[in-house]
């Protein structure tokens, strides 16, 4: 049974001139960790507000569990108070007059938990998030990252049927972010509570999600597991959004030689997979190459792409190499063990099956 079902959700602002959500459809499974990923302004927060009941959509219906919380005709509407949803707002929304402890126990007080139980829950979540020494402070006396952890803690102490988290780690430093990310995933696993998590950081999405919903302009562009999105992006937008360093795009003309397609750019040509030969013959298309799919080869190797190294970024056990080939700036990621092969000039090859081929006009993926 899906835990959240959204049908034809549309939210129009400015008398219909801005469509924050445009016919948005989604099913989130019970216990799933679902991440809304997309550029700023694509409607992520708007979708959360609709699910929480804080915004009434222009059209569309939403079901949480087996309860319709808003029906298409709007005759059924369940108030936010009745939805048992814990949300972390992008802007934290801490209660200014209450201490951290007060903030975290506020929802529990309303649910008639005993004093001891509230105390125990608050303390355990606070120590997990490293804010136990801040419990008696007011929000004004906290740093941005501390406030964000309080906001997250306030959601985690509850026993909701649904978590809605709007960029809950945006203000943490890299180390803390990784640590809290891990804790969050662990709690979510343990509680088994369906979670919708909003971010525009694709690394966060890839590491946390059971399923990613990639959005643009209020629409779902692609949804699937992080692997799906990484290995089978349905268009250039998805390919460019997911994966770091960013995927390389080359606009190429295709010619077929001995049943094998070749993607020509400049004086070079990349051999492609034979399965695509018939579909692509004579067309022009966009080829996407993940930086990690480049393989370093000897500069004398035939059919290799030769390039001039511009910048090398060492990342410890990996190196990121920016190089130009045929006047195109490309990025490759290699094992640090291969560093001695990277001199002034390099030669690279790509496994034909690892190329992502997109239509040059529509940007849609072309599969064999």
């Amino acid at each position, binding site marked *: 049974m899906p835990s959240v079902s959204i049908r034809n959700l549309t939210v129009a602002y400015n008398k219909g001139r801005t469509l924050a959500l445009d016919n948005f459809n989604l099913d989130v499974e019970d216990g799933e960790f679902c991440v809304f990923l997309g550029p700023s302004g694509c409607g992520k927060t708007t979708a959360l507000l609709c699910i929480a009941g804080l915004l009434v959509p222009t059209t569309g219906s939403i079901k949480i569990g087996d309860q319709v919380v808003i029906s298409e005709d709007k005759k059924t509407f369940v*108030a*936010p108070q009745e*939805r048992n949803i814990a949300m972390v707002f992008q802007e934290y929304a801490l209660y*200014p007059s209450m201490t951290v402890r007060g903030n975290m126990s*506020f929802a529990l007080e*309303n*649910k008639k938990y005993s004093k001891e139980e509230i105390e125990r829950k608050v303390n355990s979540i606070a120590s997990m998030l490293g804010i136990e020494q801040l419990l008696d402070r007011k929000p004004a006396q906290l740093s*941005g990252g501390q406030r964000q952890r309080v906001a997250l803690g306030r959601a985690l102490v509850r026993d909701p049927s649904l978590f809605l988290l709007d960029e809950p780690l945006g203000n943490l430093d890299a180390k803390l972010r990784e640590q809290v990310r891990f804790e969050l995933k662990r709690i979510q696993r343990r509680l088994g509570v369906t979670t919708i998590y909003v971010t525009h950081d694709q690394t966060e999405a890839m590491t946390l999600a059971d399923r990613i919903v990639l959005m643009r302009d209020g629409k779902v562009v692609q949804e699937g597991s992080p692997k799906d999105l990484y290995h089978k992006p349905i268009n250039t937008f998805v390919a460019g959004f997911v994966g770091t360093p960013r995927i390389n795009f080359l606009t190429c003309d295709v010619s077929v030689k001995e049943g094998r397609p070749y993607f020509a750019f400049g004086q070079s040509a990349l051999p492609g997979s034979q399965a695509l030969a018939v579909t692509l013959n004579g067309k022009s298309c966009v080829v996407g190459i993940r930086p990690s799919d480049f393989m370093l080869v000897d500069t004398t190797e035939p059919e290799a792409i030769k390039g001039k190294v511009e910048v090398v970024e060492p990342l410890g056990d990996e190196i990121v190499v920016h190089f130009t080939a045929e006047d195109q700036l490309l990025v490759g990621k290699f094992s640090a063990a291969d560093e001695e092969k990277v001199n002034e000039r390099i030669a690279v090859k790509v496994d034909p099956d690892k190329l992502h081929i997109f239509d040059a006009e529509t940007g849609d993926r072309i599969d064999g």
Partner: protein
Amino acid sequence: MAGALPLSKTQKLLHALYYMLLFIFAVFYLLPFWGAVTTSLKSSAEVFTTSPLSFPEKLTLEGYRAAFNHLKKPLLNSLIITAGGTFFSVLLGSICGYAFAQYRFKFDNVIFVLVVSAIFLPYQAILVPLFQTIRRLGLYDTVWGLILAHTAYGIPMMTLLFRSFYGDIPRCIVQQAMLDGYRPWAIYRRIILPSTKIATVTAVVFQFASIWNELLFSLVLTGYDAMPATVSLNQMMGTLAAEWNVQMAGSMWLALPILVLYIIMGKYLIRGYMAGSVAAT
């Protein structure tokens, strides 16, 4: 608290000039007050023989005693009327302001403009209908009549004031409280009021001072029983024309509660209370 930045020479010079100007203005404004204080402490005889600004040769509370005997009942009336009028106008204005600031409903803007436009109704324009209404209600010359009048007259201003204070509370805080399971009334009591104590203090001080000092409604809506101190003091001017010390002492009695209020409430009038509840944007 971080220290202030060091000042340059020209800035120091400018500061000195500012303070000199401020001092001159302060003397100018305090002179009448000084006159009132000294006169109020003189005996009736001394008032005629000395300059109003000179220090009393013999300090006496004679004036204060006489004035208090005269103003006892009116002062008590004033206190009841002002407390009641302040309480109800601040409470109702605050609730209205909360509704207009945080909730959207049909015709909300139209209703708001209607309510607030009452601020611009001239005092005198409503005097006659007000008098008739209060008399029909059987509230003429009662403290309740004046409390009702001041409450009604105060609500628009208080609504405007509180709406702007409560409008500064980010919507997401109210939304968060809704998701935490709280209804509008509980949100008002547990989130809105405690986060805006300064707003309430400001409103209370404002209403208290204006109702306490109000003369026109009081003149028209009371006879003898519910007469507030402003009216009574005004009458004293006529009947005790020569006794300046008693009159000045009466003014002092009248000014006293406002002074006390400012001193007590002053420390609450600090800023920056909302800081830290939302992400800086």
